[in-house]
């Protein structure tokens, strides 16, 4: 019998009851992340049926998706700053958390932020946990060796009511990254290239484990960037083996085990990596030695090319042609000749302190082009404070960028930070779908370095030319 993979270990550790041909497994959930957009219908169901939240202590709540990224001192500010629907949704979340006894990291809390940023930041995200959220980018938390995946609102109700989910066991896939990562190439470029390689449905039905010497050499923030975009390859979850880097990151965080609990926790975490003889349903090798910065040219994250390349030909594919028409790009056009109207640095993919430092390093001493609007949006209140303590905000402001409050912001057009029709945005977020950043807006996904370099030149720019 072969050994067990990281995924299998975490899966089996959470089986309340195993699956049978007739019934799915009952999987226990250790951490339920919640926010204002995908929970209202679930709380309504609980209210209608007179059910409590079973484990409010395992439920973490924040406000991030529909919050404005200008200062909010209290809920009454929303009447001025937000559309009525957004304001109502935020108020309802505050009320729901009050009614059901859930601690809310809301306005005024220095632990508020994007749900996938604050989970790790406060140490609630830990190796070996099952973590879910009504948000597909829950895959982020897999960077710690947690089994983390997105769910719908009905399932949010299931977890609130029972702390469990009904699940069929997904298949497993290993992606091995080996080779020496060239200078100027980032974790964002690795995951964009990977999605380009396997396609936006390449991971469907699978949990991916990212492996290889490249992964063990990455920081936790870089690992989170990769796991975050796992869903863009269609996979259920992405995971990475916990190691010393993971343990170091978690040490001393408010919700990480402390005192006498620390050593046993670390011992358990470090027993989780896949056994040497573990097998996977599918295995892919990717050599990173020849990678360059990547940018998307179409309307899904799999439509991606090296920044040094030209827009590919559609070869008669109508969906492909439609995507190019939407983006206003022509086959054969050099990516770096594309003008840029807006640059967005932020989102659960790239809004952590090292991401902001990377953008600042490129911007320092430079001005963004007159024609460009640039937003820099920290992922959390804590990151905002840390960035300001380092003076990063002064670099952004001096360059002509906007330095805003924490939130999902321009990653998705539902909080007031929108593109205008026809505008092209180089964005460090995760989705370049039609209209994702605002009706008619065009999104080019890239790393913080590429985003900052493109802001300076007013056209898509290889950051290696400026570093």
């Amino acid at each position, binding site marked *: 019998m072969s050994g067990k993979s990281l995924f299998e270990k975490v899966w089996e550790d959470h089986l309340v009851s195993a699956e049978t*041909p007739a019934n799915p497994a009952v999987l226990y959930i250790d951490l339920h992340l919640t926010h204002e957009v995908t929970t*209202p219908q679930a709380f309504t169901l609980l209210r209608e049926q007179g059910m409590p939240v079973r484990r409010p202590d395992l439920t973490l709540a924040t406000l991030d998706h529909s919050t404005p990224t200008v200062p909010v001192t209290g809920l009454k500010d929303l009447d001025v700053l937000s559309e009525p629907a*957004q304001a109502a949704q935020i108020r309802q979340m505050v009320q729901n958390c009050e009614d059901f006894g859930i601690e809310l990291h809301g306005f005024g809390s220095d632990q508020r932020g994007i749900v996938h940023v604050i989970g790790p930041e406060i140490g609630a995200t830990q190796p070996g946990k099952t973590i879910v959220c009504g948000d597909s980018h829950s895959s982020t938390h897999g960077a710690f060796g947690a089994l983390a995946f997105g769910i*719908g609102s009905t399932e949010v109700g299931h977890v609130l009511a029972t702390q*469990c989910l009904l699940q069929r066991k997904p298949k497993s896939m290993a992606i091995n990254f080996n080779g020496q990562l060239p200078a100027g190439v980032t974790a964002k470029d690795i995951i964009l290239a990977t999605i380009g390689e396997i396609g936006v449905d390449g991971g469907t039905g699978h949990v991916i484990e990212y492996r290889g010497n490249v992964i063990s050499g990455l920081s936790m923030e870089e690992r989170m960037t990769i796991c975050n975009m796992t869903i863009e390859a269609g996979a259920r979850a992405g995971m990475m083996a916990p190691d010393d880097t993971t343990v170091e990151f978690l040490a001393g965080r408010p919700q990480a085990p402390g005192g006498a609990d620390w050593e046993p*926790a670390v011992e358990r975490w470090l027993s989780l990596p896949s056994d040497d003889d573990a097998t996977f349903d599918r295995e892919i090798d990717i050599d990173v030695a020849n990678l360059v910065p990547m940018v998307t040219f179409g309307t899904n994250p799999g439509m991606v090319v090296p920044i040094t390349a030209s827009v590919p030909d559609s070869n008669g594919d109508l969906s492909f042609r439609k995507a190019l028409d939407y983006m206003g790009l022509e086959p054969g056009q050099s990516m770096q000749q594309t003008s840029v109207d807006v640059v967005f640095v932020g989102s659960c993919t790239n809004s952590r302190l090292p991401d902001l430092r990377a953008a600042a390093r490129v911007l320092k001493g430079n001005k963004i082009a007159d024609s460009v609007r640039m937003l820099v949006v920290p992922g959390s209140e804590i990151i905002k404070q840390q960035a300001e303590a380092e003076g990063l905000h002064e670099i952004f402001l001096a360059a002509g960028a906007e330095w805003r409050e924490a939130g999902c912001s321009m990653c998705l*057009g539902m909080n007031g930070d929108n593109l205008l029709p026809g505008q092209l945005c180089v964005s460090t977020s995760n989705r370049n779908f039609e209209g994702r950043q605002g*009706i008619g807006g065009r999104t080019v996904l890239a790393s913080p370095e590429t985003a900052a370099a493109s802001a300076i030149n007013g056209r898509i720019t290889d950051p290696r030319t400026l570093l």
Partner: protein
Amino acid sequence: MEKLTHIHSTTIVLPQTDIDTDQIMPGRFLTSTTREGLSEAIFADWRYDVDGQPLPDFALNQPGAADCQVLVAGNNFGCGSSREHAPWGLVDFGFRAVISTRFADIFSNNSLKNGLVPVVINEDTHNWLLEHPGAMVDIDVAAATLSLPNGVSLNFPLDGFAQHCLLEGLDQLGYLQSKESEISHFEQVRPWKP
């Protein structure tokens, strides 16, 4: 949830591949705090012009579209965001099944909990359906079969538990609640606590 045993309907075809849930339900409609009334929002950016007027060429704006219960879509339907507002909107419009060659996992899970059947079929059958918009198809949920007017009839994969819930109109929460004593037992005996 209503029992769903049988679907007999003409089809609407959206041939584009990789239709993501941002297209099915654009983000600006996610401020809704209920499940109802989302039919007007589905495919909004493809369906209406900038003034909110229906675009006559779009499939959902064709005469009779409101009576169609079956959507045929390009490969990998429902990718991207986990928003359940996407299947809520499709169901609110009147759809009871979507046919494609592949569905994104979360969309598929969400759909089955809302009486919307994701029907995965082979490429040949899919191509025939893409070429014959408005075809009258028959979906038997109990047998998990799709029958076309050209005489082709085939099985599609349908998880037995989800199928049972569709046929009986059951909410899956009831099953989870019946496991309460096992859940409590698990919490007590597990070797470590979150």
